């Protein structure tokens, strides 16, 4: 069986992001009976703990995302704080109209948590991949989209989530991801991004999630000189981010998404609106469906995101 790039981390007792997230929610929920957790049958060891200890705050919606999302809006209308948790493809597309009409149009602070973004469920196939979730979710006017890339970011995200009620889409990786940050102060959700590697002012690489780790490793080990940014908040992108981009000659984006409407596209639009002229190179997945085996890294390399090759050509 093909090993994935980050497989080694599983032997280090690192936690899955979903468990970090749900354990974090549990810590708040045990002191706040208005925090509700609902899922259309998505599990996790941490969720077993949550539903055993806080049964009154857990709702199994049935395997019906449409009902779950509408119900979540009903709960927030009754002043509950709600987390909906499901596989990323199903919590975005299956219930899209409920998200639009019941959540976004009423501006309800529902937290939609999608697990396994990008090709996280390799080799399950296109039904389980989310290669378009940024494009589909970013169009909602009041949404906040966040992709944590390590445990510390995920923990801080939980705190931020309960401090500020908003309609959110939280994108969790299925894999265990190693640490990016050593200090929490670098993770500022109002700012939305953090500089992970300070290179030259020539080329800045913007990415998040699984690809952030691959880029970090390659820049550190082989292709020095690039500046690397973790764009953990994809939407909204604020003015200070674009001011920061002005410092660089060339902007490179990498996303585990089809390029149409992804965050590379968001950055292009933001630059255009602000009349900032920069060379922008966007890298993403080939716009097709993948019915092939070989693991996440193999699929990424085969369909547009051979990170080694990308950096080799960029250097």
């Amino acid at each position, binding site marked *: 069986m093909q090993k994935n790039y980050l497989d080694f981390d599983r032997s280090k007792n690192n936690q899955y992001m979903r468990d970090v997230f749900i354990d974090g929610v549990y810590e708040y929920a045990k002191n706040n009976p208005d925090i509700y957790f609902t899922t259309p049958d998505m599990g996790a060891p941490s969720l077993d703990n949550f539903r055993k200890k806080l049964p*009154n705050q857990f*709702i199994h*919606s*049935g395997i*019906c995302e*449409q*009902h*779950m*999302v*509408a*119900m*979540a*809006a*009903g*709960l*927030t*209308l*009754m002043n*509950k704080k709600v987390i909906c948790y499901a596989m990323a493809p199903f919590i975005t597309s299956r219930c899209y*109209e*409920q998200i639009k*009409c*019941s959540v976004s*149009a*009423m501006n309800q602070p529902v937290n939609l948590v999608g697990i396994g973004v990008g090709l996280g469920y390799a080799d399950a196939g296109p039904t389980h991949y989310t290669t378009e979730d940024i494009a589909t979710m970013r169009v909602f006017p009041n949404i906040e989209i966040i992709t944590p890339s390590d445990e510390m970011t995920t923990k801080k995200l939980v705190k931020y989530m309960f401090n500020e009620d908003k309609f959110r889409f939280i994108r969790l990786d299925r894999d265990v991801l190693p640490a990016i940050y050593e200090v929490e102060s670098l993770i500022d959700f109002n700012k939305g991004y953090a500089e992970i590697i300070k290179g030259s002012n020539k080329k800045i690489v913007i990415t998040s999630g699984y690809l952030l780790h691959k880029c970090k490793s390659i820049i550190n080990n082989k292709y020095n000189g690039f500046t690397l940014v973790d764009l953990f908040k994809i939407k909204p992108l604020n003015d200070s981010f674009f001011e920061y981009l002005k410092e660089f000659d060339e902007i490179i984006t990498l996303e585990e998404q089809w390029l149409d409407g992804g965050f590379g596209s968001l950055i292009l639009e933001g630059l255009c609106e602000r009349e900032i002229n920069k060379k922008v190179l966007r890298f993403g997945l080939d716009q097709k469906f993948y019915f092939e085996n070989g693991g996440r890294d193999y699929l990424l390399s085969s369909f547009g995101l051979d990170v080694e090759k990308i950096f080799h050509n960029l250097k």
Partner: protein
Amino acid sequence: MSTNSLDFLKNKSQWLRKEIFEMVIRVNQGHIASALSQTEILISLFYGGIMRYKNKQPNWDSRDRLIISKGHSAMGIYPILADIEYFDKIELKKYGTPEGILRIYGDKSIPGIDSTSGSLSQAPGIACGFGIACKRDNKDINSFLVLSDGEHYEGSLWESAMFASHNKLDNLIFIVDRNKQIILGKSEECLRLEPLADKWKSFGWNVHNIDGHNYSELLNAMNKGLKKNGHPTVIIANTIKGKGISYMEDVTRWHNTMPNNDQIIQARKDLEINCIK
């Protein structure tokens, strides 16, 4: 909340039909026939002692909740909301105009509208959210939903029906405005819905199958629904689309068609006679 006499309710029927008709005609916007079939359902809820609310207080925390799930006829509730002083009656005259707060589909910005609706069968899920929150908080708040028969084609309705039953949400009372018409024809000819009562029964709901223009039957079923027995309640209120306007009654084309001048005159004549005896 007060219980009024049957004569009072019947007079309200005639009043509401006239108000709805004039509102729609003024701006040529709305769904007259759908609003006329649900008239007695709404009058029963507000004036028949079923729903708990306080005049002038649309945001009273302990009020019962109501969603017109068939959002296309949500405008049919506005005269009632003005009558119980949730907003000024002048708003009815401004319905559908840039100066007004009222529009065809109800949304959260309108006092007394507990949820935006318009996309069919999302409201049952929202009502489940209301219901389970109140259950778990031990709050005695009921949630009412007025559904169209057309919404029964949406799978999400049955998702919510299953959920409400499993979670014993007996604080939910759904009323189906069963006028048997959808846009292209009769429901039973386009795609059969019957046996509708059996479908709801099989999902574990208390089911009442009644005449939706008969106040005694409506109030009897609603009062039974208020008595909690661990099951949510659905009332299939058999109605006539366009009730009260002779040429509209049970005629498919009137879903969103506007009457011409002669038809307006005829409708006004028809509405001078109360169709609810």
